[in-house]
């Protein structure tokens, strides 16, 4: 390679790893569905979002190969998430701190 890059071009994920990742995703899906039938109050949404985020992370890390990408790819992948947090955070803050309706 004439250009040195930290991207591991030669890394090919084995099918065994993918099947394990898939099984983990299925187990977590079952957990979310199961938990939704039990009333934990506010914790329901917290559990649902935490499990969804773990699932999303392993999809990104393994299926989307992010684990083996260089740091600039990580920046590209994670920066939009901080913008998303800003978008949702600021809209929520605005909506619930207004004294004048609407």
């Amino acid at each position, binding site marked *: 390679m004439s250009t040195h890059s930290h991207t591991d071009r030669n890394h*090919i994920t084995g099918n065994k790893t993918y099947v394990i990742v898939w099984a983990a995703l299925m187990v977590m*899906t079952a957990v979310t569905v199961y938990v939704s039938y039990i009333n934990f109050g506010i914790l329901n949404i917290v559990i649902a979002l935490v499990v969804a985020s773990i699932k999303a992370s392993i999809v990104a890390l393994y299926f989307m190969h992010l684990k083996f990408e260089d740091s600039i790819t990580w920046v590209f992948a994670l920066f939009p998430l901080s913008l998303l947090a800003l978008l949702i955070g600021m809209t929520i803050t605005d909506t619930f701190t207004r004294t004048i309706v609407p």
Partner: protein
Amino acid sequence: MGDASVEHSHGHHMDPAVEYSSSKLGMWLFLGTEILLFGGLFAAYAIFRAKYPEMFFEQHVELNKKMGAVNTCILIFSSLTMAMGVSAIQRGKQKATAILILITILCGLGFGVVKYFEYSAKFHHHIYPDTSIFFSLYFLMTGLHMLHVFVGLAILSVLFVLTLKGKFNAKYSTPVEVGGLYWHLVDLIWIYLFPLLYLIG
């Protein structure tokens, strides 16, 4: 490779390694804009759910949890076959890649069929986007997601044909990888849509 990569003046051919990494980086950047596109709807969801929790709970009961769960399984499985397809082409196995992409396409179509039955059932019960804020968000979010499934299917179909034609191999698999990234995003968005819409506790 050394000579070819030095002579940039001879056209638009880049160093294959640079082309490969910039294609993937470009796709990640595009996926970032997609996340923010859906982000607007997620923000709307957050506000209205926080404002009207009872209404969200009452209305979400109308959704079919089982169909939602089946579609979640279908999409996760399609992500598995897509990922395996990428590994297969990186190993130069064209036939296996074509089969895996085809299975991924069939899963995507299956997802669409289930969604069609879901939407039909809603319309049958006179539930439309203007029924409530919850259903407005439901139809918008799942509809925009469905649009992405269709675009993904179009991309996968092209990849399938080109794989059959032998355009990709162990040395050149960039389109399969980049197309795969797009398909995984469709799965990723659904991973959030499913619990947020179908599984409100």
